[in-house]
């Protein structure tokens, strides 16, 4: 629910205007996390408010135009079960999640009313490109997490689940995320081969293929290159090819 604050607005503020505005409101936000602890399953934000604006003006005053200015807080949740991953850097993923009231109730129905006390939340991160997974134990105060993953340019998918605190083998699946490919963080010298190069004429849409050795700029440079690395050494003579990064990032890139 949005918190609404009534503010007096006037573009041409009269010379001497004094106003007092009093907003009385009580907010009763029950965080999903805390409600879990209490055994209740509500993620509702309850807001009760009474807003009073009192305005007194002295001396030369015009009637002040009042316009409503609303300040919104984004809601804590949208009551949907979801797990989403985003890539922050080539080696860091950000994951956020939420469980809807309905699903919470269903879990409690299925596993007992102490379900959320007897289990701990975990994330299982699957690297489907390299076929391995690892588990991260998280906690119920969080609804998002940063994951360090060693490998850029891989397909990742994250599962949210719960494990019994006393019996580590009992795992209950809740939801799984979108799958993303973590960004690439280097020039793909190891994949590049200099066979033929495809050109597209953007006006006609015609695609043609040229043998690398026949390209004019290669012949202009007057040396036959065995691989892309050599070509780039020539093109970027002042750069360290293994370290070529975004020019504006400089030394602030996080190295894992």
């Amino acid at each position, binding site marked *: 629910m949005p918190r609404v604050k009534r503010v007096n607005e006037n573009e041409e503020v009269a010379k001497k205007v004094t106003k007092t505005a009093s907003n009385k409101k009580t907010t009763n936000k029950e965080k999903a996390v805390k409600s879990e602890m209490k055994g209740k399953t509500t993620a509702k934000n309850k807001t009760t408010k009474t807003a009073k604006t009192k305005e007194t003006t002295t001396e030369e005053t015009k009637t002040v135009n009042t316009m409503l200015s609303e300040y919104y807080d984004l809601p804590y949740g949208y009551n949907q079960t979801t797990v989403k991953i985003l890539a922050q850097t080539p080696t860091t993923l950000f994951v956020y999640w939420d469980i809807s009231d309905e699903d919470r109730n269903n879990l409690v129905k299925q596993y007992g009313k102490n379900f959320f006390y007897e289990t701990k939340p975990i994330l299982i991160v699957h690297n489907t490109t390299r076929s391995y997974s690892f588990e991260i134990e998280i906690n119920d105060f969080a609804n998002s997490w940063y994951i360090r993953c060693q490998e850029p340019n891989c397909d990742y998918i994250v599962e949210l689940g719960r494990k019994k605190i006393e019996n580590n083998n009992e795992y209950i699946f809740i939801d799984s995320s979108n799958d993303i490919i973590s960004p690439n963080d280097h020039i793909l010298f190891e994949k*590049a081969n200099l066979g033929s190069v495809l050109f597209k004429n953007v006006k006609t849409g015609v695609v043609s293929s040229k043998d690398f050795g026949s390209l004019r700029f290669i012949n202009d440079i007057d040396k036959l290159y065995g691989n892309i690395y050599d*070509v780039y050494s020539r093109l970027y003579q002042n750069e360290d090819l293994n370290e070529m990064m975004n020019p504006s990032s400089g030394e602030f890139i996080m190295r894992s």
Partner: protein
Amino acid sequence: MNTNPKGYVSFVLHAHLPFVHHPESANYLEEEWLFEAISETYIPLLNNFKKLEEENVDFRITMSLTPPLLSMLDNKLLQDRYIKYLKKHIELCEKEIIRTKDNPRINALSKYYLYRYSQDLYTFKDEYNCNIIQGFKHLQDNGFLEIITCGATHGYFPLLYVNEKAVRAQIAVGVQTYEKYFGRKPKGIWLPECGYVPEADKYLKEFGIEYIITESHGILYANPTPVYGTFAPIVSPTGIVAFGRDMEASKQVWSSICGYPRRL
């Protein structure tokens, strides 16, 4: 004219400011970003472009004007506040000229700024009638400037794309805003913060975007590795052409290690 050029260079300017607009306050510090930018960037650009146009120099520069910036430039309140800003500065200059009359160096500086801000006021109010967007449009209509668009709120696609509709909306409204001010569809887009995701391709194509501007490593880290590096554009599978920033030129402007912003 050299018919066998060794290569081509493209100057692309990216003009963007976050949307800051506070009708509820008489003054708002951050609105000054816009006023400073108009005085120190957009008016000087227009003046110089106009001079080149008068001298019949076919300068052919590309420039992006983002929707938030366009919306602010078109806003009557902000236009009025810019005029107030200039008038306050002119008043300050006049006072400074009197105060520094015994110090020729600073006095000259005060006179320079009086002239400068007075010119800005004349240019903005009288020459462009507070509508400098028209100035840029005129240059594009006469074939000197190519203006491209940007995301609706300069939203970063590589994070927004978990909900693809958000990316589609950024592109759609970016194109729509551009059309409103320039009377035609944009051919290109400067991606917000140069952030590219393959999922954006289909929406770029849907709204008629032909080319995008992205980061140097957006080109260099491509698969397959482009043979010409950043020195030639590459084409995505859906036919969108991507231009990357030149590394050496960009470093001089942006690098915190070996460029202008570095700590000495």
